[in-house]
């Protein structure tokens, strides 16, 4: 049984149909303690599309994002992704406390094979230029979140999987996330954002998925 609430705004040009499909998910489900975490999910995501996943606490949004990222393995159903590279932003930000924001980002750039953009530029975009050189443990939660967001700019992945990107951010930070999403999506990337609903992106071409918590199956 699948339930998803899709709102697809009508495309106004033929090119919409030609966009490549980046992610296709079919009857996806994960069990914990032999119970499904969420009800089976089906959707397909094209390049240039943003999908927003909402749902009550405990409905499994984080689990779904981690499944899509490849960190978890599904119990049933399938995911097929044709994205060349994926970026994941989870609850744990993967920032080394002993290193500065600059050093953290430099590592990410080297790890992924070279600098695609100037790190200083990325730091400026993320609003971290002032604090770029101090150890990350001295940064506030919001600043660390911005550093993690800066990573998205640095690596330029095709598919973005963001779990609660708005948390810990002030109004400026929230606008930054929306800006990044608009940039990414209009540049041909795709993104999936899970949020518990306080703030949601409101883009022109956006789809919504409301996740339902799995219930006990009796079989």
């Amino acid at each position: 049984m699948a339930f998803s609430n899709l709102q697809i705004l009508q495309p106004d040009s033929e090119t919409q149909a030609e966009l490549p499909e980046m992610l296709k998910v079919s009857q996806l489900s994960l069990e914990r303690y032999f119970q499904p975490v969420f009800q089976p999910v089906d959707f397909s995501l094209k390049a240039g599309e943003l999908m927003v996943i909402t749902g009550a606490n405990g409905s499994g949004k984080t689990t779904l994002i981690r499944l899509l990222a490849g960190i978890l393995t599904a119990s049933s159903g399938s995911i097929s992704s044709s994205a060349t590279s994926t970026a994941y932003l989870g609850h744990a930000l993967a920032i080394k406390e002993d290193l500065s924001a600059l050093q953290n980002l430099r590592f990410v750039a080297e790890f992924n094979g070279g600098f695609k953009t100037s790190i200083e530029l990325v730091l400026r975009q993320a609003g971290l230029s002032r604090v770029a050189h101090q150890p990350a443990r001295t940064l506030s939660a919001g600043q660390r979140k911005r550093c993690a967001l800066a990573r998205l700019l640095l690596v330029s992945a095709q598919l973005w999987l963001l779990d609660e990107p708005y948390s810990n951010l002030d109004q400026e930070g929230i606008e930054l996330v929306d800006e990044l999403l608009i940039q990414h999506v209009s540049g041909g990337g795709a993104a999936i954002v899970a949020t518990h609903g306080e703030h949601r992106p409101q883009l022109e071409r956006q789809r919504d998925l409301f996740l339902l918590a799995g219930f006990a199956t009796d079989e």
Partner: protein
Amino acid sequence: MFIHKLGSPPWFYDFAGKCIPWLWAAFAILASVSLYQGLFRVPPDYLQGESFRIIYLHVPAAWMSMMIYALMAVMGFIALVWRIRMMEILAMCSAPIGAAFTLVALVSGSLWGRPTWGTYWVWDARLTSELVLLFLYLGVMGLFSAYDEPRKAARAACLLAIVGVINLPIIHYSVKWWNTLHQGSSIGLSGSSIHPSMLWPLLVMALATKFYYAANLLARARVLLLEQDLRKGWTRKISKIGNSNVSSRVEKRDQ
């Protein structure tokens, strides 16, 4: 079709329930034949006298301890690669049985050492190997019980079992060779050949232990399935029918 059905817990529960009595019966018959022959009919050994009779317990137990570990690793491999839950369950239920056989091998080996060497423990190659094997089993069991989520626990323990089985021959040979290196003592029968009349009860007991393993394994697997599926419909149906032994044990554990 059979393999496919094996994946259905209620089907397995029924099927195993039917098999178990036959398996116990086979074990009982073979074991009694073997023990009767081995303890009463076979003549005493030239050098060791009556004490060698412990071989009928010690050797089959040692063989089973190793065979079960290998089986556990194979089942673990299948479980990990194809994500088959029944294989996880069978592998995890094999561990305590294998550990028990290892313990029997150790205790019987120790008792054997007493009349031979005057002491209850010698660092004989086989005994030392069995001790390390016991630690390997305890590791698998410990890892399985350390995790809360049952399937994750099984997967971790299965991986450990596979890593252990690869090391097992290495451990076995290095211990054997460590023993000769240090001119250690060894427990065993004099001479390399064993007379056929002494041998066949041993083989019968070896066969009997396999039935013991199968019966015990299926029984434990049924219990584990019930525990895991406690909230599912099929288990509630069974406890309604009144399979009092298993379900009341399971409910007690749940409290």
